[in-house]
C-alpha cells in the first residue's frame, strides 16, 4: 500500500467497487424513504446489479491483481461472479411481490441481498486469507440477518439464530486455521503460501491442522455433510425469498472459494485435502439422498437436494485437475438454473393468499396449471439427472472426470445415490401429474417468477441442442486456475 494511490490499479475490482457504492447509497436512500419505498429500492437494486454485471462483462478477464495482492481477477472469478449476479438479480426480481404478500416489505431486503452479493463476489476473488475472511463474513452477516428476516415468526427467528450460532463456530474455526497457516507458512497471501508449501520438503503438522480447520469452515458454507445441519432448518424456516437466495447464490460462491483455496495455496497438498473432501462428498451424497426421501415440506426437501448436489460437485473437486474443476463449474451453472426454476414454482405456491409448502399441495398441478407442471417436471427430471435434460450432462461430466482420473468408487457411489435421489424428484412429478387435484393455487401474477421459470425450463430442455457454448464457458473458466 506504499506509494501513490492510482485508480487504474484498482480497475480489476471495479464491479465490486460499484456494487459497494450502490449498496451503501441504497441503504442511505432507503433509510430516508422508509419501507413504503421498498419497491423503488428493489428496482434500483436490480439496476445496480445489472450495471455491475455490465461492468464485469466489459472488463478484461485476464489474470490481474490489485495492489497488495489481496484481490485477484481472472476468468474463473469472472464466470462465478456473473453467475452470482444473475442469481442475485433473479432473487430480487422474484421477491418484490413475495415481500409484499408476506408483509415483510422492508427496504433492507434488497440492500442486504446486495451486501451479501458483494461479499460473495469478493470471496471468489480473494487472493489472501484475510480478504477471504472479511469477504466471507460480509456475506455471512448479511445472510444471518436475512435468515431471520421474517422475525415475527418463530421459525424464521429460529432459523436465524441457528444459522448464526453455527456460522460463528465455523468462522472461529476458519480463523484458527488461518492463524496456524500464517504462523507456519509465514504469509496469508495465496501465492506466497503456495510458494512456501512447494518449497517445504515435508508438509508440517500445524499447516495440515490449519488446512483441516479452514476446510471445516468452508464446508460449513457449502453445507457439506456433516456440517450441513443448519441447511434444512434454515431453508424451511427462512422466508421463501431468502431460501431462494440461499439455494442459488452462496453455495456457488462458497464452492468457487473452496476451489480457489484448494487449488491456489494448497495445490501442493492435494493428497491431504483430497481425503477430507472425499469424506465430505461421500457423506453429502448419501445423507442428501436418503434424508430427503421422507420429507413432505418442499423447501426442506430442496435443502437436502442441494446437499446432495454439492456432494456430486465435490467429486469434481477431488479429481483435482483442470477437467475436474471445469465439470464442477458446469455442474454449478446447471444447478443454479434448475434451482432458480424450482424456486420460482415454490414462490408461486399460494392458496388464499397464504404460502403453502407441502409436496401434497402440488397434487394435480398438471390439470390446474399444465404449463407450470410441465416446466416443473422438466426441472425435476433434470435434477434427477435424466437425459436429455441439462442435469444429466452436469452429472455425466462429473462422473466422466471421476472415471478418467480413476475414482471408480466415487463415480459408482454417485450413481447409486442418484438412483435413490431420483425417487424423491420423481415422486413430486407423480404427485403433480397423477394425484387427485388439490385446490388450485392463486393466480401467479409475478411476471419475473414466470420469466425465471420459463427461462430455466427452456434451458434444461434445449441444453442438449447447443451444449457446446455453455460447456466451453465452464471449462475455459477453470483453466485460469492452472496457469501459473
Amino acid at each position, binding site marked *: 500500500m506504499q506509494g501513490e494511490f492510482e485508480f487504474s490499479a484498482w480497475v480489476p475490482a471495479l464491479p465490486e467497487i460499484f456494487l459497494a457504492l450502490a449498496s451503501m447509497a441504497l441503504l442511505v436512500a432507503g433509510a430516508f424513504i422508509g419501507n413504503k419505498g421498498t419497491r423503488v429500492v428493489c428496482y434500483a437494486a436490480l439496476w445496480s446489479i445489472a450495471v455491475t454485471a455490465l461492468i464485469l462483462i466489459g472488463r478484461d478477464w485476464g489474470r490481474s491483481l490489485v495492489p497488495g495482492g489481496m484481490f485477484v481477477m481472472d476468468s474463473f472469478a469472472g464466470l462465478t461472479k456473473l453467475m452470482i449476479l444473475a442469481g442475485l438479480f433473479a432473487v430480487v426480481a422474484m421477491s418484490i411481490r413475495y415481500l409484499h404478500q408476506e408483509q415483510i416489505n422492508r427496504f433492507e431486503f434488497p440492500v442486504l441481498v446486495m451486501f451479501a452479493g458483494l461479499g460473495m463476489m469478493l470471496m471468489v476473488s480473494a487472493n489472501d486469507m484475510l480478504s477471504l475472511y472479511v469477504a466471507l463474513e460480509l456475506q455471512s452477516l448479511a445472510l444471518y440477518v436475512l435468515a431471520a428476516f421474517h*422475525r*415475527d415468526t418463530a421459525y424464521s427467528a429460529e432459523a436465524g439464530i441457528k444459522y448464526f*450460532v*453455527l456460522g460463528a*463456530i*465455523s468462522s472461529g*474455526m476458519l480463523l484458527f486455521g488461518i492463524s*496456524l497457516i500464517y*504462523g*507456519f*507458512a*509465514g504469509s496469508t497471501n495465496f501465492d506466497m503460501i503456495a510458494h*512456501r508449501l512447494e518449497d517445504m520438503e515435508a508438509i*508440517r*503438522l*500445524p499447516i*495440515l*491442522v490449519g488446512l483441516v*480447520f479452514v476446510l*471445516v469452515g468452508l464446508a*460449513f458454507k457449502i453445507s457439506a455433510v*456433516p*456440517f450441513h*445441519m443448519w441447511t*434444512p432448518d434454515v431453508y424451511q424456516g427462512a422466508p421463501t425469498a431468502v431460501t431462494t437466495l440461499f439455494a442459488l447464490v452462496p453455495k456457488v460462491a462458497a464452492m468457487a472459494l473452496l476451489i480457489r483455496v484448494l487449488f491456489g495455496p494448497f495445490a501442493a497438498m492435494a493428497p*491431504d485435502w483430497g*481425503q*477430507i473432501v472425499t*469424506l465430505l462428498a461421500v457423506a453429502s451424497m448419501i445423507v442428501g439422498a*436418503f*434424508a430427503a*426421501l*421422507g*420429507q413432505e415440506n418442499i423447501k426442506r426437501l430442496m435443502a437436502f437436494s442441494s446437499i446432495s448436489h454439492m456432494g456430486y460437485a465435490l467429486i469434481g473437486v477431488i479429481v483435482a485437475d483442470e477437467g475436474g474443476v471445469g465439470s464442477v463449474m458446469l455442474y454449478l451453472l446447471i444447478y443454479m438454473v434448475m434451482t432458480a426454476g424450482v424456486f420460482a414454482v415454490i414462490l408461486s405456491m399460494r392458496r388464499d393468499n397464504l404460502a403453502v409448502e407441502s409436496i401434497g399441495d402440488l397434487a*394435480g398441478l398438471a*390439470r*390446474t396449471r399444465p404449463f407450470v407442471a410441465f416446466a416443473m417436471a422438466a426441472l425435476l427430471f433434470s435434477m*434427477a439427472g*435424466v437425459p*436429455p435434460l441439462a442435469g444429466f450432462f452436469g452429472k*455425466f461430466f462429473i*462422473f*466422466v472426470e471421476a*472415471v478418467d482420473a480413476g475414482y*471408480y468408487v466415487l*463415480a*459408482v457411489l454417485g450413481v447409486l445415490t442418484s*438412483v*435413490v435421489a*431420483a425417487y424423491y424428484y*420423481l415422486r413430486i412429478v407423480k404427485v403433480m*401429474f*397423477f394425484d*387427485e*387435484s388439490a385446490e*388450485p393455487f392463486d393466480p401467479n401474477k409475478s411476471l419475473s417468477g414466470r420469466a425465471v421459470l420459463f427461462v430455466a425450463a427452456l434451458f434444461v430442455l434445449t441444453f442438449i441442442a447447443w*451444449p*457446446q457454448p455453455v*460447456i*466451453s464457458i465452464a471449462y475455459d473458466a477453470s483453466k485460469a486456475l492452472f496457469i501459473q
Partner: protein
Amino acid sequence: MNLTRLRLPAHLPVSPLAAWVGAAISFFFLVLLLGFLPAVARDGEVIRLAIEWIPALGIDLSFRIDGLSLLFGLVISFVGLLIFVYSSAYFRGDPEATRILIVLVAFMLAMLGLVLADHLIALFVFWELTTITSFILIGTRHEDALARRNALQAILVTAGGGLCLMAAIILLGEAAGSYQLSEIITRDLTDHPHYSAILTLVLLGCLTKSALFPFHFWLPNAMAAPTPISAYLHSATMVKAGLYLLARLHPSLAGTDLWFWSLAVTGGITAVWSSIQALKQRDLKLMLAYTTVMALGTIALFLAADSGKALMAALVFLLVHALYKAALFMVVGNLDKAAGSRDWSVLKGLRRFMPWTFAAAVLAALSMAGVPPFFGFIGKEILIAASLAVPAGTFWFTGAVVVSAALMAGVAFFLMTSPFFGDRATPPKKRLSAAMVVPPLLLAALGLIAGPFASFLPITPLLQSAALSLSREAPTIELTLWHGFGPVLYISIGILLAGAALARFFVPVHRVLYHSPGKLSLTADRVYDGILHGLLSLAEVLTLVLQNGRQRFYVMTIFSTLVGLIGLTALNRSFLPPALLGGIEGIPLYQWILCAFIALSVLLIVFSHSRMLAICALGTAGTGIALFFVIFSAPDVAMTQFMTEILVVIILTLVTLRLPVFHNYAPGFGAGRIRDAAIAIASGVCVSALMLSMVHEPVDLSVSDYYGANSYTEAKGRNIVNVILVDFRAMDTLGEIVVVAIAGLACHALIKLRRYSRGQRFDARNLP
C-alpha cells in the same frame, strides 16, 4: 373423481387427428427404413450419418444403420403404424386422447433414435426418453391409485437401471477409448480389467429395461396402461430396448462364462417362471403380459450363447413375437372395448359377434403356439435346434425352451378358444370400427404369410445381416418349414400336443395354480415394496438422528467430526504426539496454581446451576489465561484479553437479566451428559496434543524478523508492538478505531430505539 376436475373443461379437443399424424410419421419412417433394406440386407452395408453436436468433447449425434438396427427400426415403425391406426378408433371420445397420442409419437421417435444411434451418449439420451414417455403413458389412467403406484414403480426400476447404464457407458467409453458404437463393437473388451464391472452395470440397465428376472415385476404392473400402449411399449418396442443393447454389445462383451451364465440363468428362469405365471391369470391382458416376459426371457437366453445359430434363433423369435403379440394385445383390447371385460371366466361365445377379431385371434395364437405353417413354427423349430446345439448347458437351454414353449402353446390355444366358444353368449355392448379390426388381422396374417414364404421375402437376408452385426460368424440357416425328420420335429410335435392337452384342462390347472400356497408372483413385487419401505425407514431414522432440530446436537456433530478429521489427518501423515510430560518438572508452583484456578473455573461453568455464575466463571477462566500472557511477557495481549473478558461478562450479564429463567436446564450425569463430556474431553485432548506437538515445530519467523530489523531503522521506535500499531499498520489501526466508533454509535442507536418504542413494536414475549 373430485369436483374441481369435473368443472374443468378438457384442455385439448377430442380428436383422433393425432393418431393419424402419428400414423403418417410412422409410415414415413417405415418407408425411409425400407429404402435402406436392399443395401443393408442384400449387400451387408453399414450406413452412418453424423451431425456435429458437442465438438469440444468429441460427442456427435451419429446414427448407424446396419442389419440389427434396421430390423428393430422396421418393427418399431411398422407396429407403430398399426398401433396408431388402431388408436384412432380406440381413443375416440377419450378427452385425453391427444395428450396420450402426442406422448406416444414422442416415444416412437425416441425408440427409433435408440436403435439407430451410434454414439453411446445419444443412445442413452434416447433410452431415458423412452423411460420418461413410458412413465407418462403408464400413468395415464391416474384416477386409479394402483395405476399411480405402478407408474412410479415402472419408472423407479427403469430409471434406476438407466443410471446404472450411465455408469456402464462411461466405463465402456473409457475402456474402448471411444463412445462410438461402431468403434466399440470392433473391440473385444472381455480381457479389460473393468470387464466384470462393465458387464454388471450393462446387465443392470438392460435387465431392468426388459423386465427380466429379477426385475420382471414391473411389467405386469405396468399393464395399467391403455391397451394400445401396452401393446406397443410393453410388448413390441420398449421392453426390447434392453435386448437390443445386449445384442448390440454382444461382439465386445460376449464370450465369457460370466456373460453366458448370467444371461442363461436370467433368461431361463424368466421364461419358465413367467409362463407358469401366465396360467395363473384371469385377466387376459395380464396373461399376455406374462407371455411377453417369457418371450423376453427366451431371447435373453439365446443371446447368452456365442454361436451364429443361437443368435439367429434369438432374432427370429424376436420378429415372430413382435408380429403375434401386438396382434393379440389388440384382440384383447377389442374384447375389452366391445364386451366390457378382460376376464376369461366372464367372456364366452363371442365368435358370432366378433368374427374378424376371432379370425385375428386364431391366426395370432396359432403362430404363438408354433403350429405349421405359421412363422411361429419356424421360430420354435430354430429355437429347439439352436438349444440342442449349444456347447454348454444344453439341458438347461432345451429344458427352458421346451417347458416354456409347451406352456405358451397351451395359453395360445386357450386364448383362441375360451372367449370365443361356449354357450353363455354375452352380447357385446358396442360395435367395433374397421380401424380396430384391420391392424390385428393384418399383423396376424403376416405371421401366416411369413411362414411358407420366409425364403422369398427379404426377411431371411435381413435377419442374417442382423445376426452378422452380433457375431462375426455368418449364420447359414434356412428359414424353411420342413427340415426333415429328426429330434427337432419330434420335440416340436410333443410341445404342440402338450399345449393342446394343457388348453383342454386349462381351468383346473389354473385353479390349482391360483390356489397354490405361497404366491410366488408377488415375491419380487414385495421385495420392491420392502426395499422402498426400507429406504423410507432408513431416511426417517437418518432424519431423526442427524436432523433432529436440536442445536446442541448440531454443535456436537461438528466438534466430533473435527476431532475425527484432525485425528485422521495426523494418523495419515503418521504424526505422533511428542512425549507429553517432557519438561514438566521445570514448571514453577505458581503456574500450577494458575492452571488449577483455570481448571476449577471451567468445572464451575460446566456444573453451575446458575447462568450468572457460569458467565462469571467464564470470565475468571479467561482472566487466568490472560495472567499467563503476563507471565510470558506479552502485556499488550494480556491487556486486550482482560478488556475482552470484562466486556463479555458485562454484556452477557446484561443479556441474561432480560432472559426468562432457564427451567429445563438440569445438569446431572445422564447418558447425554456423559456423551457430551466425552466429546468435549476428546476435543480438548486433541487440541492440546496438537498444540504440544506444534511447540516443537519451527515457526516461520520472517514476519517477526522483518519488524525486529526494521522497527528502529525505519520507524525510530524501540517497542515493536507500538511501532506496528502506529506506524507500519497505522491505516489498519485507524480503521479499527473507526469500526469501534461506528459499533458504539450503532449500540447507542439500538438502545435509544428500544427506549422510545417499547410496547409499540415487536415484543419477544408474545412469541409462540
